[in-house]
């Protein structure tokens, strides 16, 4: 099983020393390796597709317009209180502590300070301090002035899965106080709403995948995508809308201050700061593909780890009874190790890209340092101006750096969002709405030259022609692998024929509304799948409106009452993991009861009696006969005792219908394949 993690790059021999070793390492880090995915096998994203993913993410915001608008409004107002604080500090120092009168320094206060200046003007130092204290307190309560931002990120691990929780619910406000609290609440609910919408939609879409796809879709991967990939899309949306807006706002405010106080050097500083934007973008752009690739890999490896864990936990009975505990532990350990490694590979690429972006920013900073220090050396500016100018420069350079690196930073989230949209967009017949209604099946099912081939090319059915009528109990019989289950899957459109037509009451099954069709067809599976809920809830899954009486009747018919009566809470007993607290035979009976409870026109039972003892089986077959009076009952069976009671028997072999007829008719035909089958099955002569 470990071979599924095959990494071709690692196997590459390093013959020619250093260079090919480096190449092999590059291939290893950046190569697209095969993990567990069988559906989503082309995870590479082109630049155009990345833009598409970003566009999709932005559109998500429309689903929480109110919260988003509120968040932006809160954030916008929150920018301004901070502007007052340095000037207030100056008043406190100059006019209160040092007791200087107003107006002796040349610095002119910005106009927005006028109200505060009016309030303190003409007071004695202690009076000034009192006024300032009152204003400080007001700012503290409302905006948390001088107490910092509001946020409540939890600690997280060193892998994407554990970081997802903060992505959904982290929340942040740049101010504190009541305002910060309100903004924080809006922010958390905003990201949560968007994540919830998206993961709900993804979950819904995954449950609607066609059966052939679901066969290849691992449960662990579904868990990973729904829980750990989805938060990245709202994150992406936030990063390309609100964040740049506030970055621009911050840059504008700094520009204003620069222009106001240092108009002379400002054009050159601004020019340098913003020249870094295209340069940082151009130099980091080549890494975007590598970053997407490594992030795809790390998430695929995380999925593979989840798969390994999910699989061995779900099948723990098999693992233990086959003595495979060590092996499964090793498999998990290897995958977990691999996923951690992949996390580090993505960090490695980030390091390279960040070094490049950092170098660009560094060169700009050096240029500015030389520029300003030259003026100071030449005596054009004073030493005190240096600190202020550098501070202002970073006020502009920081948003500029942000915009230069925005594309490269988005790539991580693009990789995750793509994994979400891949399945959210997966179109299938299952997701198609509408179609013709179907109230009740009155005639039956007809198959006309039906063929079916699985996506891997395996041909399961060829040229099947069949008439199944309401009021019949039909047995599908044939050797293992003859196509019985495939044939039965076609009726509720769990599979759709690749050639020919399946007609329900004369209407192509593909044209019928899927909800309506499945409501009229009940399928009881070979694998009796129960949910770890109460028996009642398991029954309600099939028919939420079923009355207590009908439930009891169905349980009685399927022979469940004798064991349910012994359970501590009877019908309300909660079953263990996939029903494992019951024996397999009991699980099977319960599955059958669930099937009987649905009031549908067609009932299909796939090997319903395999695990039943003869007594229960006979009861069941008798009640199936009763049920077949006003519906079509199809039974797939190997046991003669079940088969021989059918009205008609359809004998399948190698995907073709060989014989159709009643037991007696087919037995009378010396050449029938069915007769040969029966003789082998009984291995005895005492049958009627």
């Amino acid at each position, binding site marked *: 099983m470990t071979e599924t993690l095959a990494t071709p790059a690692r196997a590459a021999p390093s013959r020619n020393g250093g260079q090919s070793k480096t190449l092999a390492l590059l291939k290893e880090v950046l190569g697209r390796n095969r993990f567990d995915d*069988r559906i989503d096998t082309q995870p590479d994203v082109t630049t155009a597709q990345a833009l598409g993913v970003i566009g999709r993410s932005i559109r998500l915001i429309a689903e929480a317009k109110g919260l988003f608008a509120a968040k932006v409004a809160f954030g916008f107002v929150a920018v301004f209180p901070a502007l007052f604080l340095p000037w207030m500090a100056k008043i*406190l120092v100059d006019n209160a502590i040092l007791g200087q009168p107003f107006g002796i320094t040349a610095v002119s206060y910005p106009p927005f300070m006028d109200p505060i200046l009016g309030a303190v003007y003409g007071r004695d130092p202690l009076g000034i*301090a009192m006024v300032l*204290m009152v204003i400080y307190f007001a700012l*503290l309560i409302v905006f*948390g002035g001088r*107490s910092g931002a509001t946020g409540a990120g939890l*600690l*997280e*691990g*060193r*892998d994407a899965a554990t970081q997802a929780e903060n992505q959904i*619910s982290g929340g942040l406000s740049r101010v504190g*106080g009541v305002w910060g609290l309100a903004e*924080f609440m809006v922010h*958390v609910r905003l990201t949560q709403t968007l*994540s*919830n919408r998206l993961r*709900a939609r993804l*979950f*819904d879409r995954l449950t*609607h995948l066609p059966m052939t796809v*679901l066969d290849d879709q691992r*449960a662990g991967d*579904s868990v990973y995508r729904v*829980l750990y990939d989805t938060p990245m899309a709202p994150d992406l949306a936030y990063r390309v809308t609100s964040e740049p807006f506030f970055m621009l706002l911050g840059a504008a405010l700094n520009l204003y201050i620069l222009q106001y106080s240092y108009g002379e050097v400002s054009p050159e500083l601004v020019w340098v700061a913003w020249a870094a934007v295209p340069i940082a973008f151009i130099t980091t752009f080549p890494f975007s593909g590598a970053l997407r690739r490594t992030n795809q890999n790390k998430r695929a490896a995380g999925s593979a780890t*989840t798969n390994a864990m*999910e699989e*061995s936990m779900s099948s*723990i*009975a*098999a693992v*233990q009874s086959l003595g495979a505990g060590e092996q499964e532990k090793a498999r998990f350990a290897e995958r*977990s190790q691999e996923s*951690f490694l992949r996390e580090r590979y993505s*960090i490695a690429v980030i390091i390279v890209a960040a070094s490049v972006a950092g170098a660009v920013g*560094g060169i700009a900073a*050096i240029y500015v*340092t030389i520029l300003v*220090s030259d003026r100071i*050396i030449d005596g054009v500016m004073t030493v005190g101006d240096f600190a202020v100018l550098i501070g202002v420069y970073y006020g502009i350079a920081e948003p500029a750096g942000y915009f230069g690196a925005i594309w490269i930073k988005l790539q991580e989230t693009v990789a995750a969002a793509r994994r979400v949209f891949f399945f959210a967009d997966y179109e299938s017949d299952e997701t198609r709405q509408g179609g013709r209604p179907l109230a009740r099946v009155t005639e039956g099912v007809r198959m006309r030259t039906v063929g079916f081939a699985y996506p*891997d090319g395996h041909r399961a059915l060829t040229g099947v022609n069949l008439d199944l009528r309401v009021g019949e109990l039909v047995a599908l019989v044939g*050797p*293992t692998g003859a196509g019985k289950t495939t044939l039965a899957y076609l009726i*509720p459109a*769990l599979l759709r024929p690749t050639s020919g037509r399946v007609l329900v009451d004369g209407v192509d099954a593909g044209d019928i509304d899927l909800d309506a069709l499945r409501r009229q*067809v009940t399928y009881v*599976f*070979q694998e009796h799948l129960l949910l*770890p809920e109460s028996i009642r809830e398991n029954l309600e*899954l099939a028919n939420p409106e079923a009355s207590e009486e009908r439930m009891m009747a169905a349980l009685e018919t399927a022979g469940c009452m004798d064991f349910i009566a*012994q359970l501590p809470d009877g019908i309300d007993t909660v079953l263990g*993991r996939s029903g494992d607290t019951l*024996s397999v035979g009991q699980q099977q009976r319960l599955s059958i009861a669930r099937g009987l409870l649905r009031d549908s026109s067609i009932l299909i039972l796939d*090997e319903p009696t395999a695990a039943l003892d003869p*007594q*229960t089986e006979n*009861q069941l077959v008798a009640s199936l006969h009763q049920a077949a009076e006003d519906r079509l009952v199809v039974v797939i069976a190997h046991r003669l*005792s079940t088969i021989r009671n059918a009205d008609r028997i359809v004998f399948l072999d190698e995907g073709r219908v060989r014989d159709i007829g009643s037991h007696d008719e087919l037995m009378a035909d010396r050449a029938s394949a069915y007769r040969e089958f029966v003789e082998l099955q009984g*291995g005895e002569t005492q049958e009627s």
Partner: protein
Amino acid sequence: MEPNAESEALSLIAGYGDRADVDAPPMGLRRMVVLAWRTWPYIRPMLLHLIGLVAVMLAGGLTGLVGAFVGVDLFANKVLVGEKLQPLQATVLFVGEEYVTTDPVKLAVEDDTAGDEDATIEPDLTKAQRRTVRNRLVIWGIVGAVFATAVGYVFWYYSTWIWQSINQNLRVAMIERAESLSLKFHDSSRVGDAIFRVYQDSAMIVNLIQSAIFSPLTTLYGLLTGIVIVAAFDPWFALLVLMVGIPTAYVIVKSTPRVRRRALANRVANSRLTSRIQEAFGAIKVVKANRAERRIFDQFDEDSKAALDAAYFLRLDMVLVTLVVAVLGTGLVIVSEYIMVGFVIENRETFAGALLAGFVGFVVWNYGAVQIAGRFVGNLSGSARGLLGIWMRMQDLFIALERAFYLLDLEPEITDPDDPVPFPAPVEDVAWRAVHFGYDADKVVLAGVDLEARVGTVTAIVGGTGAGKSTLMSLLLRLYDPGAGTVSVNGVDIRHMAVSDLRSNVGIALQKNVLFAATVAENIAFGTPDADRAAVEAAAGVACADEFIRAMADGYDTELGERGGKLSSGQRQRLSIARAVVRDTPVLILDEPTASLDARTEQRVLRNLAEWGRGRVIFLITHRLSTIRNADRIALVEDGRIVEHGTHDELMAGVAGRYRAFVDAETTGRAAA
């Protein structure tokens, strides 16, 4: 693309008052210490690296500090102001004697960044010299920045690797424990919960040292030095600080259990959500066939919202507590500024200023004193807030570790004896003696089973659904241990053998044909990883699976899909048999091996097995008469006991006739009761 199902919006406050439906675990300081201590075995393998990490951190910090000192002095005093250089500075900048200061005062006090008026007596550096110093300093700056960045990045990668490795140790230990827990545990716990514990809860170990040891220590240090320094300025001031500390401490102590409960609720809710998704996709076929997608979606949506609410309310509580403490702390800063302005105006003496008058000028309250004292009051408030933040996150951290160690603390019921006896070879007989067993105390499944099977025989275990047939066999694998009585091989109690030894000598083909999403060959060799291809093919031959496997697209290398979903159940069953056969064990159990096989295949498989089974002990659980009749012995299980035991002919002739009734029901297709 309009979604079929849509989730409703989340409310800003609704539900906040509802009490979380979990009880806060007892999590005193002592429990935290115990939990932290217990992580030691997982941290220890990386100890050397952790020490290396701390060394890099300290060395880097020190280098940075020295570099910054020298750099600031050079740039501010020498380049911008124009002072001459210290000798060592000239050396590292490769400039001549003419740059170096001759002022003895400056030479005695290295790196004194405060501009001293006397030093300006000697001629300043020329503009050209200042530019030279600046340019060479820039070059050093580049070298330093590149070096610091490189070290920083290596540190990032290296620390990630170390913490991931520690996390990996814990994860693997948890998985190992989960896999060794008896089925009794697994039957009543959810898969998603195990996933959540191994995945999410364990990850918190990576924050342990930083959050539970380093950060609290440094902030505590800041808090204590702050108090001392503030007290040095004015003891009344320190008293004020301590008085603000009282309501702060009260708020923190009062809110801690609440935060803890919210943290647990958050983890429980997210664990439930994980389980919900896992279960939905584990049983997706039934969901689809019953068109229950909507119902499953509603359940998912409910759990999803519950998880989001739990995350939100936890954070809301954290933010509220922080808000209260921030207002108290910053309020203190603001009030103290007002008081200090008063002090300055009245020229009040500082408490300890006179003692230190030799080198600092804070004998009375002045601007500098306000600056320094104000900064320390601010630090105090900041430290308190920092400590609160760490404290609250630590609650979540330890709740997570508690959940992780819960799994590790579960003792497997099935354990190896201290001094295991090897599995006897050659096997002569397998026997159950007066075996009692029940999954729950009040639900007896086996009530005194006596059964013996000798080598070279096939024993069919027959009986009604739920009679205890599979349970009887699972005792032989020690999936459970009997409540009373013994299961023995050659007279040796299997509890005296090592579990792995026992299980590698008893093969089983399960009734539920569990397959994995891997290739055919890997599925057959599951549990026998060292089986070569020839052995796998031979086993497939015995199970009559070789033919259909070869007909598949990639033969033995064909991928089987989720839970082996691409095979018919007869094919799955044969793979399951092949899997048991390839293990080549002296004891083999086949649970309903032929239920899904057609008659022809069944006969072939049974013939092959009879051939293959010479010299082995084989048990067959079955309902099918054609299978039963081929067995050497038949044991009929009813109500937890073996009621009839013998050959087909013997039992058919038996007086009680229970077996005969069973056979009649099978052959005539009528209810026989």
